[in-house]
């Protein structure tokens, strides 16, 4: 009798943990996607910086803002690109730390749920 209630409790616990786990999984996948996007952008910006460095100082650089091509100063353009690169890198590190946290929680929840399953089986 007592064992039955214990089993039911264990099952409830297990369900809760399963829900938490699925939420965490979603978080992890979202995190992955965002990080991928940022990584691609970072790569592109680095390419742009490389090309800009290869240009002469008097070359014309334009920026596409909406439907408008605006002439930009070389130095200004370089500075902008550099700032963007820095911003993306900081975002990436923050996301990475978040991901680590979430992943650790996920892992611990996995182990807890495994234990619960074993307990329920017994």
């Amino acid at each position: 009798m007592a064992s039955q209630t214990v089993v039911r409790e264990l099952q409830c616990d297990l369900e809760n943990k399963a829900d938490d786990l699925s939420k965490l999984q979603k978080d992890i996948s979202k995190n992955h996607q965002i990080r991928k996007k940022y990584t691609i952008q970072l790569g592109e910006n680095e390419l742009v910086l490389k090309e800009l460095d290869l240009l002469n100082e008097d070359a014309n650089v334009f920026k596409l803002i909406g439907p408008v091509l605006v002439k930009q100063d070389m130095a200004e353009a370089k500075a902008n690109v550099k700032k963007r690169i820095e911003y993306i890198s900081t975002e990436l590190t923050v996301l990475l730390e978040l991901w680590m946290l979430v992943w650790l929680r996920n892992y611990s929840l996995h182990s807890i749920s495994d234990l619960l399953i074993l307990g329920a089986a017994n």
Partner: protein
Amino acid sequence: MEAPIKGTVTSLSSLFPVEEAQKASKRVEESITERQKQLDQLREFAADNNTLINLVQRLPDQLHHEIMVPFGKAAFFPGHLVHTNEFLVLLGEGHYAERTAKQTVEILNRRGKALEVQVEAVKALMQDLKAEASFFDATASEAADGLVEIREDYVEETSTKEASMKGTVKPELTISSEAENVPSVKDEEYDRILSRLAELEKEEEEAENANQEELGEAGSDISLDDVILEEEMKSSELKERGESRFQSTEKFPDNWHVQGSKSTSKDCIVPENCLPENLAYGKFNLTESAPREPQAKEDAPREPQAKEDVKAPVIAEAKADALPTKPGFDSSKAFTGSIIEHTSDVNSREQSVSHSSKPVSRFKMQRK
């Protein structure tokens, strides 16, 4: 037989359940198709890049080109393309730069190189995934066939001739040696093995002469097909019961499956049909590396070489991937893993050997 050797028999299907192996192989195949798509996309980009380079190079040839200018979604009007040497190149992230044709071509070339690097990376990934997939397939088929892994501790034995493996239904044999069990050489055993090899060689030559036409090329070297023939004859003598079934040579390579094991030292590769002599050869392989240098017998290097020729291509086959063939046995590059062998009908084997120049030559080709 010697004192009973303790061993464990584990069914492969318990280690790697069939469905799991199949699922795993499917997963890997999916990832392979994904990567293939990526690869195709990258290749498209590279092709586009090249056409663009050609176009950019041709434009400055004329001061102005006559073209049909697109006007809206579904209209064109005739016009001229002027300023043929001025290009606004997209650098990325909404930044454009005004460049000449030559400079544009340089930028495009750099982009092309970056694409190539990406293509190489994806190709490398694909290779790894393919290797994984083939391994999973092999494991799945093995497990489905009901292979059994037999692990035995290696015990130094004085006489191995009597080690008769009863021909049961699909006897499988895995010989894995642990480093600590490699015994020191016993000269009598070694001599006995050598004499045995001499016998076998004689029989090979007889067999070779007998089957010269069918086999086609009969090299002066001891070839694998000869050894197979000779061993098959031996085994047919020994296995009068005929219960053991050898699989045809056609499937011969498939039987030599690689099973990743934890063994640290060399594993013995044994011709399947000489099961009674398996242990002998196995020991031979184990021990021969150690005394190979000190034993400066004339026969010794040649016969180990002969055996190694046999084993090396078999190892190559066993790897199941395109490995470079190693005609010589190099202990430093020894194959560390366990081989699981199949044995099946002698009869089918004899038939297939007699008119199977194809698998024979395949071994030969592999050796070359």
